[in-house]
């Protein structure tokens, strides 16, 4: 068995791909899947047949990511698709979102779970309006690592000058929107997705480039969303009370179940439950029937406390002394997701962590032109709009700025009449 297929991975990275139609997004993904041997023979035979049927000579790797029948009929991709591949050391989840302007909401959706974004640029076209849009959105949703993939280098004679110019143009623009200032990590790779140069194999067309290939870059990217120490946040999902009155060990069992969204916790740590403000210490940390001394970010655990305090779903456990202030008003950048425009007269439900509150818009400060990042006046919001909005809340929420903690700074808006998810918000204050 070769190294690619070794079934022992030790980390997981979620990334997204952004590009406009024909930049080579599907070919790149197909290439990654193909060169890591994720594509199996029957699928390959299938796309070979389809390639022939469509009159193509070579196998079109972009067919690997061909969409649903509904989309094929319309000749477009309408939604985020998730794909998987694995190397010897890592499992990858790709969120593949279409790049058109009218699909801002799909990009925001894909970005919300990604820790790295590949932004594709056609070497012949350079930095375009859509490149700016994709970068702005990656920045807005705070994807920490950005890889600018200058594709179709084969059509630009694999010329280093072309690559260098695009890099310089991009960096100038990144400076303008504050990408690097705010800690985003930006890398550039020249490549040809079609020929497979600098994707998994280096190829020999670009000896002047000595940096990592696309796959090496993915393999080296830190899988954590944040490299900073974050305050401990555990939104309570479920309270386990077995009520086994005949079992003395379980008689008083009260387990607070949830996923550690940020930070870490150890047995003996002082914790405070919000919004009540009552404090205790961690007596036990369990995962299944295993007891642990400590637990880290993204672990789903059960906490047992030393004192009996009243905690239910929607409450949040934090370390004593690190509690966020419960707020009844939030200012946030909102992406509107629904075909039905936002109505300032209506009440929406805000779902934040495991907690919900009714909310009303008190002000729309401005709307952002995603192509120029310019601020524009706005009365209401339509699908794909991004705007700064202030909400009044019926119930207090325990929030962090999105910049500081993604999971406790994010929320969705739900329309109570349809139950649809209509908006996505990132809290500024």
């Amino acid at each position, binding site marked *: 068995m070769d190294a690619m297929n070794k079934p022992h991975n030790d980390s*997981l990275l979620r990334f997204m791909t952004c590009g406009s139609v024909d930049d080579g997004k599907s070919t790149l993904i197909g290439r990654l899947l193909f060169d890591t041997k994720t594509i199996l023979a029957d699928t390959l035979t299938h796309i070979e047949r389809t390639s022939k049927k469509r009159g193509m000579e070579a196998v079109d790797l972009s067919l690997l990511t061909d969409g649903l029948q509904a989309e094929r009929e319309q000749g477009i991709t309408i939604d985020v698709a998730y794909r998987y591949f694995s190397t010897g050391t890592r499992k990858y989840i790709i969120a593949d979102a279409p790049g058109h302007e009218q699909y801002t909401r799909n990009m925001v959706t894909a970005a919300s779970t990604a820790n790295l974004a590949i932004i594709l640029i056609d070497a012949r076209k350079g930095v375009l309006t859509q490149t700016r849009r994709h970068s702005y959105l990656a920045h807005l949703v705070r994807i920490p690592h950005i890889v600018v993939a200058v594709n179709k280098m084969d059509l630009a004679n694999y010329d280093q000058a072309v690559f260098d110019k695009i890099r310089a143009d991009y960096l100038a623009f990144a400076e303008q929107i504050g990408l690097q200032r705010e800690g985003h990590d930006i*890398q550039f790779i020249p490549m040809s997705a079609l020929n497979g140069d600098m994707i998994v194999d280096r190829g020999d067309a670009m000896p002047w480039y000595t940096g990592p290939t696309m796959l090496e870059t993915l393999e080296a990217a830190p899988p954590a969303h944040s490299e900073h120490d974050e305050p401990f946040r555990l939104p309570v999902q479920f309270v386990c009370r077995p009520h086994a009155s005949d079992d003395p060990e379980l008689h008083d069992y009260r387990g607070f179940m949830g*996923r550690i969204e940020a930070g870490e916790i150890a047995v003996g740590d002082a914790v405070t439950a919000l919004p009540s403000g009552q404090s205790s210490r961690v007596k036990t940390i369990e995962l299944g029937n295993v007891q642990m001394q400590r637990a880290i970010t993204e672990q789903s655990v059960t906490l047992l406390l030393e004192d009996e305090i009243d905690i239910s779903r929607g409450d949040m456990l934090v370390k004593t002394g690190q509690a966020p202030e419960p707020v009844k008003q939030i200012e946030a950048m909102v992406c509107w997701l629904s075909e039905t425009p936002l109505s300032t007269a209506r009440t929406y439900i805000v779902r934040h962590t495991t907690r919900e509150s009714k909310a009303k818009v008190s002000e729309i400060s401005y709307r952002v032109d995603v192509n120029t990042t310019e601020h524009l006046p706005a009365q209401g919001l339509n699908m794909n709009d991004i705007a700064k909005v202030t909400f009044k809340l019926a119930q207090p929420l325990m929030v962090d700025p999105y910049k500081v903690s993604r999971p406790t700074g994010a929320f969705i808006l739900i329309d109570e009449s349809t139950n649809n998810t209509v908006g996505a918000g990132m809290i500024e204050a």
Partner: protein
Amino acid sequence: MTTSTKETLSHLDWLESEAIHILREVAGQCSNPVLLFSGGKDSLCILRLAEKAFRPGRFPFPLMHIDTGHNYKEVIDFRDQRAAELGERLIVRSVEDSMKRGTVVLKSPDEPRNKHQSVTLLEAIEEHGFDCCIGGARRDEEKARAKERIMSFRDEFGQWDPKNQRPELWNLYNARSHKGENIRAFPISNWTEMDVWQYIEREKLALPSIYFAHQRDIVMRSGAIVPVNVPLASGDVINAPKPGEEVINMQVRFRTVGDITCTAPVPSDADDISKIVLETATTTITERGATRLDDQTSDASMEQRKKEGYF
């Protein structure tokens, strides 16, 4: 690129943790959920995840199997045994009851019953008033699943409309539904077949015997391995060879176990989990391509079935 100093979870721990989180969200958001349990490998993983999510408490949902009446006896026995060991309630509803009621009409007696499961499932949902069904579908299984939500919305007719799905951001799931509507929750959406086998290996999960290499009578029918003379839990025997077909005794295993008439085994000598993991790593054929006798006709057949209310 900046180097990482932060401790993170292994990929299996991450997937496990995500699935536990999803199961707890279902429990927290839905009033009457049910876990679909077939005795197959994916649903056995979900049972283990549910133990990790809710023990020492009881599961906040019963288990339910929609039985086509054409399932392998080994799997049905295993299903019952596992539910009993866990001490959780198992509801079984059968396609054959729907046939008796006249809500399922077969075009021919040996027509595959897989697609008719949708009818029986919808009837069971209505009977019990379930607002959410937890299932073991994975996005890597098939194209039509790559865009599936973790909380997938179905209308009053159980229909999935790809254009009418709720955007899913961060890990903020929206499992709300109105009366009569239904959410399908998929805690192992982000798992691949390989992840499932690795998890089974790590957790030392017991499986029905037919997942391991065994001798079986088969015929080759248009390129596929078709098991013949299969005994059912009811005592009947199905899949007689057609006249002229040569019955071969072959060493095979199942990568997926579903309705007998539409799941095919693969030749294999993997008789334990670690050998299966190895075989999975080096296989050249997808799980569905190798094993589904009903999907090969059309690219869109799964999409079509889902629109009609299939799981």
